[in-house]
């Protein structure tokens, strides 16, 4: 087969076929025939934003339970069966969605579709399975949050930045809630959120649209749906002044973590904020790297805001993490970071630096399109969070339309002191740490 080797002739538009079934299920098909592989994905519109105090972490724990057996399969057999066909299986839970995927040889697509439908209908939720998996999840939480260098300060940051919206608690949940969750909570959760009307399925890769449609119709079509779960309407009110806290732990370094409320994925202004974040922290030409990391004032200066499709559905947090180099005063580092932001607010950014980060965003977008799995995730999560899968094809334009004035306006509107929450990581000795009591 002759290869098409002209970049200028490459057409970046993704061909997305969208189907809606009678039971409310939405299917997206993204055919691509370069390799004999396919990604089958099921994205449920439920994440930690759908939880409430007392059952925090249940979305993620439930993700684990989906691998603990069904009528047809024993614990973890789902993964074993798919792997034995050359596939890979995994899942992830965010604040907005819970997603399951199988990347596998195209010849075995039907197996993946059948097993996903089977576990949706016939999941085996038993007390034994539940108790074992709850301990696994608590171990995961200790790994990712409790024993990780910045895990608990990051949890505190969200808990302070949000007073009303469910983004205030961690996706992994609070340990207290994990210990007290019951099997009945899981059964209730399953009844509410795991049904065809609350999911979007994706087939991306070496598949014909009709074949994908037929397979999903065959296995998911007969599954009844009680309907779409009630929407979450929580809104975080505007912040009215800086919030600040200290977190003490055994640490070799001092750090500050700052969160600023920024728009969610549906708001076009998010593209200006993403480019602003890149100007501050993306790459070795960025302001943050040149002013703080390169000369050794900071071990790292990270500016986090997940790009589409991982951007938050509701207004999220742009997080800046400054890790002071040993011997460098943290207060000075923090002040200088605010000073760098003030410079953008006062003087704006140069066309050169804006063009640079726009090209970086476009390049990353093109890179993602080479991969079946990521292309599927891109389309599905955009659909799930905005109602529009076709947004995939407009993302490069949305970045392109941002002007230097938009960046300056975004910096003024969002990266200001009244909209800021700061957690200072203060190192303590082992003895002081022990005296402060246990962590969980």
């Amino acid at each position, binding site marked *: 087969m002759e290869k098409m*080797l002209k970049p200028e002739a490459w057409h970046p538009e993704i061909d997305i076929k969208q189907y809606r079934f009678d039971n409310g299920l939405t299917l997206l098909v993204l055919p691509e025939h370069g390799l004999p592989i396919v990604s089958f994905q099921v994205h449920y519109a439920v994440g930690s934003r759908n939880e409430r105090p007392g059952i925090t972490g249940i979305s993620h724990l439930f993700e684990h339970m989906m691998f603990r057996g069904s009528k047809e399969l024993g614990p973890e057999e789902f993964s074993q069966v798919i792997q034995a066909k050359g596939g890979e299986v995994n899942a992830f839970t965010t604040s907005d969605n819970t997603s399951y995927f199988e990347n596998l040889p*195209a010849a075995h697509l039907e197996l993946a579709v059948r097993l996903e439908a089977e576990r949706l209908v016939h999941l085996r939720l038993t007390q034994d399975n539940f108790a074992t998996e709850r301990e696994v999840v608590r*171990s995961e939480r200790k790994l990712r949050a409790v024993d990780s*260098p910045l895990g608990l300060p990051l949890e505190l940051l969200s808990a302070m930045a949000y007073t009303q919206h469910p983004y205030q608690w961690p996706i992994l949940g609070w340990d207290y809630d994990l210990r007290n969750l019951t099997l009945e909570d899981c059964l209730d959760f399953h009844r509410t959120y795991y049904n065809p009307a609350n999911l979007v399925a994706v087939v991306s890769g070496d598949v014909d649209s009709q074949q994908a449609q037929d397979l999903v119709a065959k296995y998911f079509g007969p599954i009844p749906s009680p309907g779409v779960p009630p929407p979450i309407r929580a809104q975080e009110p505007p912040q009215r002044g800086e919030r600040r806290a200290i977190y003490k732990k055994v640490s070799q370094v001092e750090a500050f973590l700052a969160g600023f409320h920024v728009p969610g994925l549906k708001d076009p202004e998010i593209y200006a904020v993403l480019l602003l974040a890149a100007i501050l922290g993306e790459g070795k030409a960025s302001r943050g790297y040149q002013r703080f990391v390169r000369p050794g004032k900071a071990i790292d200066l990270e500016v986090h805001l997940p790009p589409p499709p991982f951007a938050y559905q509701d207004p999220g947090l742009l997080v800046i993490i400054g890790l002071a180099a040993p011997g460098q005063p943290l207060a000075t580092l923090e002040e200088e970071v605010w000073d760098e932001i003030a410079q953008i607010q006062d003087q704006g950014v140069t066309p050169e630096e804006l063009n640079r980060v726009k090209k970086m965003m476009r*390049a990353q977008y093109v890179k993602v399109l080479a991969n079946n799995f990521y292309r599927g995730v891109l389309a599905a999560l955009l659909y799930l969070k905005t109602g529009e899968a076709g947004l995939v094809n407009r993302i490069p334009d949305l970045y392109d339309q941002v002007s230097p004035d938009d960046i300056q306006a975004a910096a003024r509107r969002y990266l200001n002191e009244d909209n800021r929450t700061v957690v200072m990581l203060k190192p303590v000795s082992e003895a002081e*740490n022990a005296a402060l009591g246990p962590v969980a």
Partner: protein
Amino acid sequence: MTGSAVADYLPAIYHTNLNNGLTVLGVEYDRAPWLSICFMAKRGAEADPPGKGGTADCTAEGLTLGTTTRDQLRLAIDVESRGARLEAHGNWDYSVVTLEGLAEDFGELMALLAEVVQSPNFPEQDFAFLKGRRQAELVHLQDNPREVANRWYYRLFFGNSPYGHPITGDLESISALTLEDLKSFYQRQFHPSESTLVVVGMVPEATVVHEADRFWSAWSGGARPAPPYQEAPPSLGQPGIYLLDRPALTQSEIRLGHLGLPRQHPDYFALRLANYILGGGGFSSRLMTRIRSDLGLTYGINSHFHFRRAPGPFVISTFTPASNTAAVIQETKVVLAELKQGGITAQELEDAKNFYIGHFPMGLESPGGIGQHLLQIDLHSLGFDYLHTYCDQMRTVQLEQVRTAAASHLHPEKLVVLVVGPAALCQSDLEALGPVNLVTES
């Protein structure tokens, strides 16, 4: 083209040698206008001078700190204004400098990478910055229990042999590093006859070969490197249990292992299959089934043979709430011993083979993934038909070969076990398993 024949999708590898001895390997790629250009010098952290761990890695990063015509900032701007990413690091057995970007910028990116590799400036000021930054990062790593465990572990059984220090060095070795060390490493280890350029992207072969010749054939490099390191170390750390006390942790990081094999070993395929069944196969592995799924003692456990030019380590990695530490070690040893004693079933082997064979095309989706294959093919002289023979080599492994490989190359009695965790919660249980050697960070 569902169910297409292997030959329809396997990339054709083209290769040429320039006059100066540089090998050029490439694949024409058409899934997206993306491009990966990778330079590999076939010497890495194993060639770090004694007491100067981190030299190879810092030398690689040193190349990105500026050239004779562009300072660090100019270079970063010129790379990133094309949306590209420049990365350089040392690894065991090789050092790499990679530039990934859009295929439309092939000409400029090729010129940039050639300049970075061939005309580094090693600026004084940026070296001082690099050294300070590396030291600060090492201080910060001490807060990460997984990193602490990994870094300590290899030192425990490789000692002072070439694989016995962390690739990024430690505080002492980085303190000892001078700019001259970087220049000297570059002069001794970066030579075209021991280097390879890999290009995977939406660029025709003829264009790549032409531009490679234009930008790379005049490079003469430094002296020819000494022969590569490929022997087993003369002495190894003593088997036993080692404990690094971290009172503030709630979980223990655990590493168990022993010396493994070199990549060229004839049992490579059989042992990869045995390891998949043991702990390399995720939820299909026995370790994951026993320790996580049945007992709920950890979120994750895996085993890995690090196949290098010289024998690399075999390591099982896991973590568990501190009070489970001894139980996890005990159960892990039982699983390891069972596998060694020949319990592998025909069905397990069939599943493992099917996984590797079925999964193979997924490594070919991105230019970076294909480029990684090419690097390994070249580094270990696997043959340019390797992608075409891989599945057959996997498919023809017999059950008896896998059983023999497991029996020969797994050594539960020789395990070096490292625990990084709170001694107050796990030491007495560990002592029931055997003598516990307390280690302290110097």
